[in-house]
């Protein structure tokens, strides 16, 4: 395993080092605001100690990035594949335009999580947030799975305002007793039934394996499922084509 001290190193130098390293597993220490770590990287296993900068794992492909702390903004921007695991909180716009791969956040995420997420055939991205999330979750979502567990926020809705605005594909699961009250008419909400829960068991297992907790306890709580309302779609919002 390669080990590098990022202290006082410019992000460009660090990222070149990571790309050129002959080892597939790299541990980076003293990370502080270094941008674009692992962006566009293929086939690396990157462990980050400290606070990575914006656009962590942007355009990521087949990499496994683990952050032992918080992450900043635009994590996993337009990522293609791979996994980003954050043992802390995450800033704004996580998973922006994600096409595939997985982002798992132990804590909470900021505004605009999962906006413009998309999917194509077997490429279905996953964004999982253990705690709460800010406004504009899944704005313009076109595909993919978003799961908000609301751990530690059991007494209120763990999702901010304007959730699912412009959503026209994909699915959002929220573990809560209090579903968002300001959903647009283009989004349907219903309580998740057993088959819905069964369909996300795999991801709940993945989450608890990484961060601890009992998957059955989580799955036994109430979940709400948000999907685009097919009887009231956006297709004629601007022009009739």
């Amino acid at each position: 395993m390669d080990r590098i001290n990022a202290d006082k190193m410019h992000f460009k130098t660090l990222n070149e080092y990571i790309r050129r390293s002959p080892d597939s597993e790299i541990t980076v220490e003293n990370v502080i605001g270094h941008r674009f770590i692992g962006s566009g990287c293929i086939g690396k296993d990157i462990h980050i100690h400290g606070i990575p900068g914006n656009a962590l794992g942007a355009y990521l492909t087949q990499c496994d990035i683990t952050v032992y702390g918080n992450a900043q903004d635009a994590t996993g921007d337009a990522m293609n594949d791979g996994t980003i695991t954050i043992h802390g909180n995450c800033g704004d716009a996580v998973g922006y335009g994600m096409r595939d791969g997985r982002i798992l956040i132990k804590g909470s995420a900021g505004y605009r999580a999962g906006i413009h997420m998309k999917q194509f055939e077997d490429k279905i991205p996953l964004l999982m947030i253990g705690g709460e999330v800010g406004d504009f979750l899944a704005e313009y979502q076109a595909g993919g799975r978003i799961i908000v567990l609301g751990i530690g926020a059991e007494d209120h809705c763990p999702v901010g305002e304007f959730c699912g605005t412009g959503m026209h594909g994909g699915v959002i699961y929220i573990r809560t007793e209090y579903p968002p009250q300001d959903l647009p008419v283009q989004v349907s909400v219903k309580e998740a039934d057993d088959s819905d829960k069964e369909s996300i068991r795999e991801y709940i297992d993945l989450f608890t394996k990484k961060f601890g907790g009992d998957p059955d306890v989580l799955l036994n709580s109430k979940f709400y499922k948000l999907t685009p309302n097919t009887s009231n779609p956006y297709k004629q919002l601007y022009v009739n084509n």
Partner: protein
Amino acid sequence: MLLEGQVRIPAGCAISGFISRDGNRINGSEIVKSISYMHDRSNGLGGGFAGYGIYPEYKDHYAFHIFYDSNEVREQTEKFLDRHFDVINLSRIPIRRIPSITNEPLIWRYFVDPRPTKIASSQLDEKEYVAKCVIRINNDIKGAYVFSSGKNMGVFKAVGYPEDVGQFYRLDEYDGYAWTAHGRYPTNTPGWWGGAHPFSLLDYSIVHNGEISSYDANRRFIEMFGYKCTLLTDTEVITYIFDWLHRKQQLSLEDIASVIAAPFWTKIDEIGRTDPEQAEKLRYLRNALSGLLITGPFSIILGYTGGIMALNDRLKLRSMVVAEKDDRVYIASEECAIRAICPDCGNVWSPKGGEPVVVTLNEEGRKRCL
């Protein structure tokens, strides 16, 4: 010089700030270190700092920091100062020559007391008199710009990266209970010395990351009350809005947040269902002061005597985090700028859009610093 509307440069910016609530004086090198970790948010076209509690030996006098284009302008301005103020002390602001900061104007500092007879004949209160004098110099004397005019505080700004600006102004020789900083990536105006942040009037200073879509509406409103937006860059108007609403209209900082980052009407209706009185107040503020609603993305830190305040636009289109450790509260565009100077700070959180974070000196701090 090309001004707003005549030239456009695309955008970024970084802000950082902190306060010691106990009033411990923190060396300026700390804020320089903090902002330096967001180097790539700026492009070298502006950096600046505001320090509070940095002039304890002159704390009862107004400290004017002035840029001059030439010695002739300086002489002309000093005549104006002599007519309106008793000048207690004047000197060039000490700088450190470094290769990355060039083409500096003449940079002078004056500690002044307004002349009591002049105040009496102007029929203004002292602060209003001083503010009027500052606006007059900036507006009427071409080539002179008062960029700092508060008591026991000072603004230091230049064209360059913020960490270089900190070196240039020798900020390691100042200690203050609160500091704010800005790294600039100009959006709409050229990078020039007067256009760097913070923008300041009396003891109010603003650092801003973002772009005000409502700039001209705000400017037209505030200029009705004697302010002049001479720098034609958007952030300047925020400083005057705070001065007018806080100093002159005596609104609380929380209420000011409800004016400039007013909740949506739908949100106000929602609040009205549980708290009709609060909704009525919010409705009143939005209606009466609609010209001061700031639209567009922004995160700002206001510095003022005894405190700092952070605020995001209501949609939170710019990043901002807050952290706490012991008696200190830190605010920055990115968490790394806080961790750089406080690696083990706990409780890092992001305020919501439009949610003001106001942190003031506590009783002990006020005793020590004010």
